[in-house]
């Protein structure tokens, strides 16, 4: 039986009195690419952050590879070893070189030797097309390069699922495509991905499932073909017409 890679069932979350996630149900199968879009403040980041437990949900269940997330440190450790995350602001470690950014997790959390970790790091730097920047500090790289280093850093942990939270929103326009290209390649290689983005060209190319969120709810969910050509809800139609205009 093939279990879903990620399953959210009736997930609710509040920030104080503010009901930020309302009954979220979402299944991501192994190898699937899910793209989440929606207006700012609709709860997209919060969904993704709940999946890897940077935020705690208060009601409902989240399962990763069939393991339910609880307060148990073991379940958190499972998530951390299976789910990678790429942030809008890259969050590279500024005091470390690119290579050290990539080897820190494998050495400290996985117990790899320095040599093994560096081999792996160089392999993934190659994959994101920046093989020659290993000894630089993050600040010496362009935004697009930094985000690709961040992707490589996640890949070094060999996660089963990669989460992306608006990975190109902080980038200058001319650097967006170099990051998206890397993500498309990852998708084609079969990585399971959950991507929050407004890059609809990317979504059309790789998404198996589109999710539209508004005000803490999943308003619409569907295959990209129907999603883009024939959105069911008024809110989704309006949102799409706005972002597809330019």
């Amino acid at each position, binding site marked *: 039986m093939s279990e879903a890679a990620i399953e959210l069932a009736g997930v609710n979350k509040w920030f104080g009195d503010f009901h930020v996630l309302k009954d979220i149900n979402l299944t991501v199968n192994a190898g699937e690419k899910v793209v989440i879009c929606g207006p700012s403040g609709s709860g997209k980041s919060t969904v993704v952050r709940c999946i890897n437990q940077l935020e705690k949900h208060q009601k409902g269940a989240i399962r990763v590879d069939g393991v339910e997330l609880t307060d148990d440190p073991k379940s958190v450790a499972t998530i951390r070893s299976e789910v990678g995350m790429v942030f809008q602001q890259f969050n*590279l470690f500024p005091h470390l070189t690119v290579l050290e950014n990539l080897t820190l997790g494998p050495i400290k959390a996985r117990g790899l030797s320095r040599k093994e970790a560096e081999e792996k790091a160089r392999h993934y730097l190659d994959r994101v097309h920046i093989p020659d920047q290993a000894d630089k500090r993050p600040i010496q790289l362009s935004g697009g390069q930094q985000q690709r280093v961040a992707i490589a850093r*996640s890949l070094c942990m060999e996660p089963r699922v990669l989460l992306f939270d608006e990975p190109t929103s902080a980038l200058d326009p001319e650097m967006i495509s170099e990051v998206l290209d890397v993500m498309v390649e990852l998708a084609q290689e079969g990585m399971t991905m959950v991507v929050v983005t407004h890059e609809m060209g990317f979504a059309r190319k790789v998404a198996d499932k589109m999710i539209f969120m508004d005000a803490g709810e999943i308003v619409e969910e569907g295959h990209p073909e129907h999603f883009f050509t024939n959105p069911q809800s008024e809110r989704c139609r309006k949102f799409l017409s706005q972002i597809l205009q330019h």
Partner: protein
Amino acid sequence: MKKLLLIVPLLLLAGCSSSQTWGWYVIDPTTQSGWTNVKFLISGMWATIQISLIAAVLSIVLGLMVALPGLSEKRGWRWVNRIYVEFVRAIPLLPMLFWVFYGLPIVFQSMGLNIPIDPFWGAIITLAISDSAFTAEIYRAGIQSIARGQREAAQTIGLNYVQTMRYVILPQAIRRILPPLANQFIYIVKMSAFASVIGMQELTRRANELVVTEYRPLEIYTLLIFEYLILVLIISAGVRWLERRMGADERG
């Protein structure tokens, strides 16, 4: 104000000429007895430095241990931090010193432990605890200045709490922490003078003892003040050097 500043050196000069009020001979290093006195006074320097250094090291360790619960997401841990900091900050140094030196051995005794506390360790323990409330706040501010995304990124690559602190947060926070921590060392050096009242043979104690035998408080305490001044000026120079280095690191 300016006039007042002029008066002080004039008074000092006047003192040199009229031996009625000033008697620099007690610490005149060109005479046999003066030189003996100066050596006696300066010989307390080593104890002052020792007490201050050991207390500072302990305070740096203790301060981190107090600061970390203050950064916890759990309210209970934050309370532990708040209570410690507020409580320790509120106690004047001298009563705390008396409590540690005279009181703590009795506490130990009642627990069946025979741990004597000599003036040396009594002073160090008191200074370290008193200072740790301040170092804890320095750590807390320094660690909080590191963006939340750094901790989150460390977590998502599987680092646990200790690893996150050790490899990601503290190496970045140290630039903000080290200069104020070094500044705090000046506070310890000055406060170490209180150790004299429990009989520790440091700078101030030596001065007091000499005053009793020579009855020349003005000259001897003047020298004492200059001894502290020199110590503090050396440390300040060190702090400024550290700040420059840290600043340069940040830019590079």
